[in-house]
Structure formats: structure tokens, C-alpha cells
């Protein structure tokens, strides 16, 4: 099952390595990983999307908690949550494709943020399934380049992850 693990970690050199090394050393899987400092510059917030049975995810969270730099760990999927990912996708846009591309971007609520005679660069946010769906919807020939941030997640409602 797909899990979204949110981690508050000390914003120290090497903290990211410790987390990533843990996944590698214990053969846990990382689908995506995002990290950036929070409003408190001494803390970073990490979101890791991982697949595994409940037992494996339980071990992952326990081992993450064991890392000295890790302050808090939650598995977002245990409660309602929101997940967003940013994708930048550069597509071929020549001739009648140009209009079609614009329409597709609109349907997916994407924005064209860079234009050349032959290309569009589209910015798209949504959960990872939406980004997947957009790629699916396009003719694979027309995709020149994609870059995705990986998922960031946050709990819905009053639930907060804070020190």
C-alpha cells in the first residue's frame, strides 16, 4: 500500500543522508522524497512516499524515530490528508498541436509558463495521480521533458505536525 510519511527533522548537515541511508540500508522503498526548511529555520519538513505492507511501514516509522535528528514522524494516510505535487512539462507545440496543447492544459488546470515557437512549458499541480493522468492524456511523442517535485502532504482539518 502507498504511504505518505511526513517527517520533521533537525535542519542539520547530514540529516537528509541519515534518512535516505536508512531506507537504503534496510531495503525500504522510496517513491518520492521532498524536503525544505519550515517556517522555523531550525527544522526541515520531509515528505516521503513509500510502498509497503503495514508491518514494513511500521518498521520504517520506528526506525525513522530512532534517528537522533528526527523530531517527529507521521504517516499521513492514517487520517484525511491533502497531497500536492508540482510538475513542469515541456511539450512540442507546433501547428494544430498548439491549440490542442493549450486546451489540455486548461482541462487539467495547468498554466503555460513559457512559450517558444515550437514548445510550451506547462506548470501543473495536483496529487501524483493527476500528474500521471496528464502525462497519459498527452501524446507521448509530444512530451519533450518532464520534471516533478514528488509529493508534499499535509493533514486536513485541525491535525498539525509541529514540535
Amino acid at each position: 500500500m502507498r504511504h505518505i510519511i511526513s517527517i520533521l527533522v533537525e535542519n542539520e548537515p547530514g540529516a537528509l543522508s541519515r534518512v535516505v541511508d536508512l531506507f537504503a540500508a534496510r531495503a525500504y522503498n522510496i517513491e518520492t522524497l521532498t524536503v525544505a526548511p519550515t517556517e522555523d529555520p531550525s527544522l526541515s519538513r520531509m515528505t516521503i512516499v513509500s510502498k509497503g505492507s503495514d508491518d514494513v511501514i511500521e518498521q520504517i516509522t520506528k526506525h525513522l524515530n530512532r534517528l537522533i535528528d528526527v523530531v517527529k514522524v507521521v504517516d499521513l494516510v492514517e487520517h484525511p490528508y491533502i497531497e500536492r505535487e508540482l510538475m513542469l512539462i515541456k511539450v512540442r507545440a507546433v501547428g494544430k498541436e498548439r491549440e490542442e496543447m493549450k486546451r489540455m492544459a486548461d482541462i487539467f488546470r495547468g498554466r503555460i509558463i513559457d512559450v517558444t515557437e515550437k514548445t510550451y512549458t506547462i506548470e501543473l499541480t495536483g496529487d501524483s495521480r493527476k500528474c500521471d493522468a496528464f502525462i497519459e492524456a498527452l501524446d507521448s511523442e509530444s512530451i519533450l521533458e518532464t520534471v516533478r517535485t514528488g509529493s508534499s502532504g499535509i493533514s486536513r482539518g485541525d491535525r498539525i505536525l509541529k514540535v
Partner: protein
Amino acid sequence: MEITGAEIVIRCLHEEQVEHIFGYPGGAVLYIYDEIYKQKKFQHVLVRHEQAAVHAADAYARCTEKVGVCLVTSGPGVTNAVTGIATAFMDSIPMVILTGQVPTHAIGLDAFQECDTVGITRPCVKHNFLVKDVRDLATTIKKAFYLARTGRPGPVLVDIPKDITRDRCKFDYPKEISMRSYNPVIKGHSGQIKKAVQLMLSAERPMIYTGGGIILGNASPVLRELVDLLGYPCTNTLMGLGAYPATNEKFLGMPGMHGTYECNMAMQNCDVLVGIGARFDDRVIGNPKHFAQNPRKIIHVDIDPSSISKRVKVDLPIVGDVTEVMREMIALIKESIAAGHGTNKKALGHWWEQIAGWRTKKCLAYDQGPDVIKPQYVVEKLWEVTKGEAFITSDVGQHQMFAAQFYKFDYPRRWINSGGLGTMGVGLPYAMGVKLAHPDADVACVTGEGSIQMCIQELSTCQQYRLPVKVINLNNRYLGMVRQWQEIEYESRYAESYMDSLPDFVKLTEAYGHVGMQITKPSDVEPALREAFKMKDRLVFMDFITDREENVWPMIQTGKGLSEMLLGSEDL
């Protein structure tokens, strides 16, 4: 007043009341060594190889309740130390490793004797630090000691660039330290403890299984009280030997791959298994699928949540300090007994009868004939001669298992071995660390001709510091455990497990300035041991020429279950 980083290191060690450190100098740590030269509060022990410094400090921690400390230089000093650090990490030993680093301005430029110490050691330490500002040095060392000794203990490394040891600042050693990201749970969940006690008291076939956590948590007295109060059978893992007296009737021997028949059968057939400070290691429970075939309720007490339900699904987890949790259990059990709800005496009687039946197998029996020395016999005699009170270190292999099976440890922290990583070569440096901590005690290193040669250079350190340990070399001219596996699983194809061109250990020992003995006859074993232990101020290397192809029985082959033991060659 401002002092240098090197002086700060020394002052920190004084504040921590360190009495011995083990190390080896080199370019990056020379300012620190200069300060060591100027002080008298702790003794520095100069080893012959950095690996031995870490092992000795590790053993020093294992046989006391202190944090072991060692100091090595950058680059090769660190890489040599890695085996020692990983060894300590696997067995959760509290240690602080101070390492030199090239100056901060040279880091990352492939400087002479530079390596990424923090990167290399990250997977085998509890935590590590690179100090980039002398003003952080004292707090970092304080954190290192705090992390090493609290929670689930472990080695913590502090990497100190050379310029930091020369820079100056005011010295201020924090009295207390708190880290928002590190709060080990000490007190167990009361509700869980209550449920556990009910389950324990209702058990018909109970078994108490404890590991290294009891030793590390200084919980042996409380464990004894708990076991004696309940009257339940008890086992200690390889890491936990001595937690409960091995000479007590309630002790069923060690569990696992080379554990006793009665213990493994009890582990497999019990209805309530109480695991305390143990981690259901692969060498202890064998194949988890086979282990799960017999239904039983499992209670697991451990300070580290990640140890719980890792290999075996647990019914009643309790996270907490083992002493605290057992104390609470004892109080509840006493209350329950006072209220007339004690243990199930009738069922327990049947259970003990069943165990007595398993005991009649005499799974550790061996036949000491008149001609060839059996390794088991040497260990039994060692136990007799030292009245069971010596500190025993071992290396890794058959001799380690014989020592664990035949030296009946009645006290905690007397059995010092590498259980998790299984590091050959630890025995002699371990003995050095123990002897420094307990100069008046008998210290023996049970080893083999393979393992001892992995750190034999330390005979020189023993001479320099007058460490009169006794080396019990069970010399079968084979890498015994490898040979045993090859015999059993590889149709006796003894690939590279034969030790040719062995040194003359007697002459070698004498060359280092010690006493060497070679013992070839069974009748000489005991007199030789007595003679050796009489030489209180000499290191004696006893080269016992033992039965070449003796195997360690019982044995559970890899992938097999606890009740699928081989009891001897006839089972092959």
C-alpha cells in the same frame, strides 16, 4: 579565559570522569595528544592497531557501567576503527569515539589522510557529529556521552578537525543536556504492564527469555527477583549470559543455533513467552515461520520500539527501561499473589516435568578420552579453576560457543563477546579493556588459532601496560566453525578452512615478553590452568592442542526451526 579546542577535549573527558582512554596518535590529533601529555587524570593506553583501541574501549564499557572512550586519527585511523565501531553498534555498547579530521579548510579537497568519517561511520553509530566551530565542541562532546549512555546505548562518534583543536574559546561544560528530537521512553505503559502480568500469571507453560538489554540496563538483580518470584524457567541469550545465574535450576541454558535442547524446546512449546531486552535474533529463534507454528502469546519488553515486532509478531509490546518495567511487574505480581491469585502451580509442575524430560537428553555431553583434548573440557576446567568468577572474553567461532555453553556465568558483565557482528579478533583487545577496568580480577580470553591472529599484535600492548590476562587458545588447526558448516552443509569440502603454517605460539608469546605454554594431553589441562592462574602478574598464552574435528552441538541449521536441532553427528 580562552583555552584551545584540544584542552577543551581533555577538560570534557575530565568532567565525564574518564579514567582510561584507548587510542593511537596521528597528524590530525597531535594537539589533543599534546594535552594528554600534560594531564594525569586519565590514562591513555596506546594500542598497536586502531581496531584494538575501539575493541578495548568497547570491552571496558561492557564490563563496567561506564562509557568506553577511544581516540584515533583521521583517514586510516578511522577506517581501521570502523570494525570496532560496528561491533559495538551491533551489541548496543555505550562508547564515545573521538576522531581527528583534516583542518576545516582542507575538508573535501582529498587532503592527506582525509576521509569522510561521518559518512563512513553513519550506518554503524548511534549518532555522529562533525565539529565545525570550537564553540560547539564542549556541547557536542556532552551530547555524545549523553546519547551513548541513555536509551538504547550505542557508540557515538565526534569528528574533530585539526584547526578546531587549535582554535580557542571559553570552556563551558553543560551540566544537563536536552534534545527535542531525543526522548527515550523509560517508564512502560501501565495498562500494558497490567495485561502482561495477567498473562504471565495465567500461563501454563511460561518461558522467560532475556538478552543483552538486561546486562546493559543493569537489570540482573531485578530479573532474578522476577524469575524467583514466579518460579518460571528462564534463558539468557549469548548477549545476556550471567543475567540469571547459570548454575540455578531455573536456568535452561542458552537458546538458539547452539543453544541447549531443553531451552529451545521450551522456547518452541511454551504458551507465554516473556522476552525482555532481547531482539528475537535470527540466531536465537531460527526460522520465524517455524517459530510461529506453535501458538503462544508473546510479551516483549524493550527500550527500543524498533526492536519490537521486527522479526516476530508480538502480542503485548511494552516500550521502556527493563528495570523500571520489571519492578512494576514484580509489584503487581506480589499484589496478585497476596490477593490469592498466584501462578498456576499445577500446570507449572507439569511444565517442569516436561522440561526435566528434555534435560535427560544431556545435549551438551561429550566424551573426554585419554588422548586428545576436547575443547569443552578445557572450558569446563577453566570454570572450575577460576571458580566461575573470572571475566571471560572470547573471539568468534566454535570456541565462543564452547565458552558460552560450558562456562557457567553466574554474574552479569563477566562474559564479553561480539554477539551481533561476530567479529573475529576482539578477544585479546577485549581482555585488555577488562583487565584495565578490573586489575585484580582473573581475566581469560577464550580464543582459537584463527581469531587470535587477527589482533595478535596486542600482545605488545599487554606487555607495555602489564596486563596479565590469560589466553586460552583452543587450537584445532582449523577455522573450526567454518569447517563445521562445511562438513554439515558442503559435504566436507574444507575450502580454505585449514590453517597451515601456524606460528609457534609459545615462542611468539615469549618474543613479546610473556609466558607461553603448549598443552597436548588431557591430563595436563587442569594442572596447566592452575599454574597459569597462579602467575598473577604474567600474561600466559596457553596453546591447547585440541580435537581437530570436534563440532559444536546442538546445532540448528540455517532456515530450520528451534525444534529441528541436530544433537550430534549421528543426526546428520
